[in-house]
């Protein structure tokens, strides 16, 4: 551990991100830099996944589309889903969690900074590994759910090996960060920051960490079985030899359904931060929001079989899962009412982060309602595997998760980079995405009920599917334009954005008490917390009628009397990155056994070197 004297802060704390040279980024153990790395990587993959989606929509624009072959189409929809779930929404939540969890808790870093770096490099290794397969024989083509025995058919094609190994590594990365976040929450909160005073976003990160920790091992087992079935002739999912294909479905959805909540809860956390800030009211029923998050976390493990209603589970199992699926809508509904209660009677400021949060509520309610219809087993047996389902989960995951994430980007960008994203361009961005999103996905409800099955690369003329498919494709182009506007906004802001102060939104939580961007050590003095929304209570008091009254600056309680004496920060280390690189090489080798075993050996040495170096490394920063 390095000891920084606050009088002479490290140069890194004042330098703008990006100026430190590549080596500094590779060796960083600073949670903020790792957060930025996560953020930029996931935006990059967001564009990749978006391009894949555009290919799909262009192919389906007219009957008998000619743009993609069946083979290419199958790769596109498999990789679109895999990319968006594992390489975009999960890591971007991780980006926010990395950056803001310590700041919201009043901590100087996460509990295990080098493990944190390792998580990022593993994520990058897995993400590149999955994407690389496009250039060596094609992307994965078994669907993101990889149903056996289709995914375990042994052929010359190694695409599904790339898929199963890549997901495996991404899973390990997520487990590592879950452990990290849980420990951070449990041990690193500032004095006075009780669990119930924790900001809601931090709470949601805490909850999804548990979800990931308990659900990922199940799919890990399944993925190992897929890999073994494919490569050394085990027969876990081979019905002809006594295996059971349904076992894979259970293992996958036991992970897959909690995963859905992993994708949506961080966005719910973000919205629960943004709405109170711009409604200038505390979050309505704050503890209800937290407890319903916990309830969703628990119940999320009891609904998986509603993905399998048509596989002949039997009436008892189907009735049970129908009921749990209906029940899980209750805590979700509670949250919606809490958000509405928060904006009710508030003095709303309709800027871009707020618009995205309101859009989130609107779209998520639509997606949530169409989701409840799946719990009605007879109805589900109409919708199962039709485009209705595609419409439903895009409303939840695009209208929900992505809108929440964009709200978070617009909200926290000034804190991370010290500059405000442009408001006017932001609003254009919002409306293009909002209109584009509805234009793309609303017609899919109709398509699904008209019988359009999922994952078919073309459809015949005259089935009544033409018009709405064309509308959906036009919508997706509008959506793409919206994303382009967003990228332009970001680029423009880096060049000439308006400088944000430490607290541009008059916000409520601790991350806004420090400068923008925060110094490397986050807080000169670790804050002492007395309230929920502590920062708000430092700035405002209430009069007899309960209205907020600003406390004049000179009358505010003195928070810091000079900086802390000893500030311990983790030392930089290249070992986590080396271990991640080693794993990447090992994975490549595993696909091409036997001669690939050489690569497995080389990668293994790199991995072990990284691990040993990491554990033997002196904790002092040396001559830095």
């Amino acid at each position, binding site marked *: 551990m390095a000891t920084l004297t606050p009088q002479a802060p490290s140069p890194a704390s004042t330098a703008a991100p990006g100026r430190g040279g590549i080596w500094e980024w590779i060796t960083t153990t600073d949670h903020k830099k790792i957060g930025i790395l996560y953020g930029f990587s996931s935006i990059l993959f967001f564009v990749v996944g978006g391009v894949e989606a555009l290919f799909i929509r262009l192919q389906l624009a007219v009957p008998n589309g000619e743009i993609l072959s*069946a083979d290419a189409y199958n790769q596109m929809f498999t990789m679109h889903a895999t990319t968006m779930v594992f390489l975009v929404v999960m890591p971007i939540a991780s980006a926010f969690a990395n950056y803001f969890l310590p700041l919201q808790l009043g901590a100087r870093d996460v509990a295990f900074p080098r493990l944190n770096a390792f998580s990022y490099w593993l994520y990058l290794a897995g993400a590149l590994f999955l994407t690389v397969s496009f250039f060596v024989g094609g992307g994965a*083509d078994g669907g993101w759910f990889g149903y056996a025995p*289709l995914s375990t058919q042994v052929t010359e094609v190694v695409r599904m090996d790339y898929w199963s190994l890549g997901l495996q590594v991404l899973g390990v990365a997520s487990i590592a960060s879950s452990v990290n976040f849980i420990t951070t929450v449990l041990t690193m909160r500032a004095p006075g920051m009780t669990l119930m005073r924790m900001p809601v976003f931090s709470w949601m990160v805490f909850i999804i960490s548990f979800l990931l920790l308990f659900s990922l091992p199940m799919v890990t087992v399944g993925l190992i079985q897929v890999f073994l079935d494919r490569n050394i002739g085990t027969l876990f999912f081979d019905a*002809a030899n006594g295996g059971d294909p349904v076992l894979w479905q259970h293992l996958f959805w036991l992970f897959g359904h909690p995963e859905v909540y992993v994708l949506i809860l961080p966005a719910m956390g973000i919205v629960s931060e943004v709405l109170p800030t711009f409604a200038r009211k505390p979050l309505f029923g704050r503890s209800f929001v937290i407890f319903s998050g916990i309830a969703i976390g628990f119940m999320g493990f009891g609904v998986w079989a509603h993905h399998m209603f*048509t596989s*002949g589970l039997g009436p008892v199992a189907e009735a049970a899962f129908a009921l749990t699926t209906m029940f899980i809508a209750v805590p979700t509904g509670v949250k919606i009412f809490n958000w509405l209660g928060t904006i009710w009677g508030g003095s709303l400021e309709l800027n871009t982060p707020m618009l995205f949060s309101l859009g989130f509520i609107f779209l998520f309610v639509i997606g949530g309602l169409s989701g409840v219809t799946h719990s009605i087993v*007879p109805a589900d*047996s109409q919708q199962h595997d039709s485009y209705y389902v595609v419409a439903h989960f895009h409303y939840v995951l695009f209208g929900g998760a992505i809108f929440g994430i964009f709200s978070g980007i617009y909200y926290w960008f000034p804190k991370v980079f010290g500059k405000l994203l442009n408001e006017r361009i932001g609003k254009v961005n919002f409306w293009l995405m909002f209109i584009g999103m509805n234009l793309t996905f609303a017609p899919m409800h109709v398509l699904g009920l008209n*019988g359009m099955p999922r994952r078919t690369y073309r459809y015949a003329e005259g089935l009544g599917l033409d018009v709405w498919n064309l509308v959906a494709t036009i919508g997706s182009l509008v959506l793409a334009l919206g994303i382009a506007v967003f990228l332009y906004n970001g680029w423009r802001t880096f060049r000439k954005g308006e400088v944000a102060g430490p607290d541009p939104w008059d916000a409520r939580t601790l991350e806004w008490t420090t400068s923008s961007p925060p110094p490397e050590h986050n807080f000169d003095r670790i804050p002492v917390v007395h309230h929920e929304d502590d920062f708000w209570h430092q700035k405002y008091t209430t009069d007899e009628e309960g209205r907020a009254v600003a406390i004049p600056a000179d009358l505010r309680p003195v928070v810091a009397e000079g900086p802390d004496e000893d500030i311990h920060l983790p030392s930089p280390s290249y070992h986590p990155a080396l271990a991640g690189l080693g794993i990447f090489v090992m994975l490549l080798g595993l696909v091409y056994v036997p001669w690939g075993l050489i690569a497995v050996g080389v990668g293994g040495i790199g991995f072990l070197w990284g691990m040993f170096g990491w554990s033997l490394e002196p904790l002092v920063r040396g001559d830095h």
Partner: protein
Amino acid sequence: MQIDRLERIFLFLTVTLLAGVLMAIVLSVVHDGAELPTQAGRINVAEVRDTAPFDAPGVYETAPGKYQAVIIAKAWAFEPAEIRIPVGAELTFVVTSIDVIHGFQVWDTNVNAMVIPGQITEVSRTFDEAGEYNIVCHEYCGIGHHGMFGKVVVSG
């Protein structure tokens, strides 16, 4: 406990709505004959074609007005691809797969099943209107998935 009047109305409406939805489910099952695919036994995948009834896929009249369609799903076709029955017949589909998981959906009906290798899936439906009903595979099954379909022809 004192509950505000608006809150009471709201609670009442919510509970009524939930009860209504539950009743609708019961009604759809009892009155409209919603039927779910059931697992009607297991079968050795390697010996499907040697096991009755799949040794002779086709449509059979089992009783007056009752028909059974024995169908093998494979990559990428249904065998047989066309099923002919008279109007008003009660048709039971008995389906299994000889390779990967397939889907079995009959358009404009509530027949929707997953066809799993090693498992026999049964689902029934009475066809009261003449016409052609498309059968599509809606469970992704590989490169020929889009071309896997059949039809039920109900003649008057």
